[in-house]
């Protein structure tokens, strides 16, 4: 099958049985790859109401038709599972070089089933596939493990690994790769940990079949040329995502002290140019990237090296915790990477705990003696370690902000900043209604990458609640995740603004099948609706209430910064949902109607 590795690798960890099956052509047609494959296999193969940490849950790792080919940023890999954090759909995107190697090993997906009786790592070298003993790696940090495995097998082997947090079942544990790239959100690392899989070691040498080689080469060259000619390339490469820290601070979107404000008085110390000047050592990119956003940094204060921090981490481990020193943020970033926890959720849950402490809900007796005030970097470092090891007070936070606040009570649920149980990423949405809706309706919880609508808010009027705004969010949700389906990075389109039509000749030349953006957006809409059906299947009573944002965004106007005194009215929150459901073809309770399910050819998934 042109554009595909050709096989799905199925590994039963309970029995040790390993088998390869041909990648199903009809699934490739309807779901293309990446997160499309992920939700297809998850819905088909994991039984309803499965325990995320049980035998029945699966980890589905998928490349797409662009992965490993000469397409800008064709190094994206999807990790789908049932989320232990939210109880719903989890899909985390991993950059780096892992997915290219997956394709070169002739694989489109790896499906990990069951639970291994002892710690193992999965070793794949072309046709050689084995589960190998990982008892000597268990307990070690992600970066240490990657280094050891690279030294053992060689630099050309690609490694994905969990840290101690994944082993310990921290609900927002992540998967680390390439010394600083993560499949970050939803607790994918915890699922791997409960399956006793410490790492995957991957190497392949096979070619990927392409339908029309000359046309593919030309389409690839055209895409790379567009990136090289982009007006913003030089600046983007200098600063990466940190370029927007100053802008977010200026417009009141930079989360500050548990989202009580959107501008930070020490924000200037976290801006891209400061970081570039003070800690960045070099740029670092993923497979086939013409515009590397990764920044490899060195902290003088701690004498440590880390990839990052990028924007989200600066927001969540910096301003949201009241930390105004980029070296402190970088150090917190490194601790999270090595211990194996998502920086966004970690920042969110610590920010909530800090607010509890400052309100007197927690005292030092509760926090194991930590003076948990905003701005206390040493307390943040100590707490990251405690969370990863589920030690003392850290065990409460390891459950995520929704559960921690429900257990704590005393009104702390009101300032637990999450949607569907996932901590909100780094955009303050007191007065940015499109971005607020994007978070409310995102299919994994409060994550930004499906619809980065904050810029649209600023362009058209941030407080407006219009059908056009809602349509924009829906279009972004259908279109943007197509990059996660195709297995390539979206940032060349998002940030360099290259023409999206340049991708179509490449896809046709690779697969031999002509597809229009209208057709591909329908695939995106099909996937979006299937993820919705998955939530409905898994959670009794799932509906409109699950799409509400944290009350902070309609009750607590910031007192300082660019958005001081600004808030979204609750009736506008409801209006956003009304418009959204109507345009999606969903009921007033947010359930896809039979007509919508039929139009998208999803009847087989309705239970």
């Amino acid at each position, binding site marked *: 099958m042109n554009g595909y590795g050709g096989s799905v690798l199925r590994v039963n960890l309970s029995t040790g049985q390993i088998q390869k099956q041909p990648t199903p052509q009809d699934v490739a047609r309807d779901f293309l790859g990446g997160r499309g494959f992920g939700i297809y296999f998850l819905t088909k193969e994991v039984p309803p109401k499965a325990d995320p940490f049980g035998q029945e849950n699966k980890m589905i790792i998928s490349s797409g038709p662009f992965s490993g080919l000469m397409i800008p940023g064709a190094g994206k890999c999807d990790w789908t599972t049932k989320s232990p954090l939210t109880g719903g759909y989890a899909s985390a995107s991993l950059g780096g070089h892992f997915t290219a190697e997956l394709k070169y090993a002739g694989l489109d997906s790896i499906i990990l089933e069951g639970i291994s009786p002892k710690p193992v790592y999965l070793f794949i070298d072309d046709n050689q596939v084995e589960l190998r003993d990982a008892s000597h790696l268990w307990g070690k940090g992600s970066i240490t493990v990657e280094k050891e495995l690279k030294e053992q097998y060689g630099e050309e082997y690609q490694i994905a690994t969990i840290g101690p947090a994944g082993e310990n079942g921290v609900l927002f544990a992540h998967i680390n790769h390439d010394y600083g790239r993560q499949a970050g959100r939803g607790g994918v690392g915890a699922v791997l940990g409960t399956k006793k899989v410490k790492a995957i070691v991957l190497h392949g040498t096979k070619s990927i079949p392409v339908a029309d080689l000359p046309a593919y080469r030309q389409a690839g060259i055209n895409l790379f040329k567009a990136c090289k000619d982009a*007006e*913003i390339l*030089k*600046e983007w490469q*200098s*600063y990466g995502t940190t*370029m*927007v820290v*100053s*802008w977010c601070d*200026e*417009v009141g979107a930079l989360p500050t002290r548990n989202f009580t404000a959107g501008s930070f008085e020490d924000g*200037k110390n976290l*801006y*891209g*140019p400061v970081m570039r000047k003070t800690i960045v050592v070099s740029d670092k990119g993923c497979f086939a990237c013409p515009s590397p956003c990764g920044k490899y940094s060195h902290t003088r204060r701690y004498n440590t090296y880390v990839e990052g921090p990028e924007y989200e981490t600066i927001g969540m481990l910096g301003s949201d915790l009241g930390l105004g020193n980029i070296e402190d943020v970088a150090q917190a970033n490194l601790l999270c990477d090595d211990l194996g926890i998502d920086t966004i959720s970690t920042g969110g849950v610590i920010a909530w705990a800090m607010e509890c402490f400052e309100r007197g809900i927690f005292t030092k007796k509760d926090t194991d003696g930590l003076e948990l005030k905003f701005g206390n970097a040493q307390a943040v470092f100590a707490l990251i370690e405690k969370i990863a090891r589920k030690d003392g007070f850290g065990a409460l936070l390891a459950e995520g902000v929704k559960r921690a606040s429900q257990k704590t009570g005393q009104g702390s649920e009101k300032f637990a900043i999450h949607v569907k149980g996932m901590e909100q990423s780094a955009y303050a949405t007191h007065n940015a209604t499109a971005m607020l809706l994007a978070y409310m309706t995102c299919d994994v919880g409060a994550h930004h990458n499906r619809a*980065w*609508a*904050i*810029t*649209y808010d*600023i*362009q058209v009027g941030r407080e407006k609640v219009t059908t056009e705004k809602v349509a924009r969010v829906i*279009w*972004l949700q259908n*279109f*943007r995740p197509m990059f996660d389906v195709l297995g390539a990075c*979206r940032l060349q*389109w*998002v*940030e360099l*603004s290259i023409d*999206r039509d340049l991708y179509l000749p490449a896809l046709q030349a690779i697969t031999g099948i002509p597809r229009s953006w209208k057709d591909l957006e329908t695939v995106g809409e099909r996937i979006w609706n299937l993820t919705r059906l998955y939530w409905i299947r898994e959670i009794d009573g799932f509906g409109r209430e699950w799409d509400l944002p944290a009350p902070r965004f309609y009750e607590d106007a910031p007192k300082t910064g660019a958005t001081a005194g600004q808030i979204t009215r609750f009736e506008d929150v409801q209006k956003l949902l009304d418009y959204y459901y109507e345009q999606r073809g969903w009921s007033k309770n947010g359930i896809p109607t039979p007509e919508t399910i039929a139009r998208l050819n999803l009847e087989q998934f309705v239970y």
Partner: protein
Amino acid sequence: MAAILKLFGILKKYIQGADQIMVPANITVRQAITTLHIPPEIVALVVVNGNQQSKEYIIQNDDEIKLLAIMGGGR
């Protein structure tokens, strides 16, 4: 005493589709933006002689200033 202001993306519409315009020195970038009726919030990045600067940067003679609009895809 003047500097070159280069505009990119959607910002070009504020100078009738041109690529650049001369602005006086000794005013801030924010003042220059305001005189062109560009909403400051939609300017994501100010780059002066190759370095990112704030909108409060005071324009010097012969500076080359690039203003980049917020992106976010599909502009």
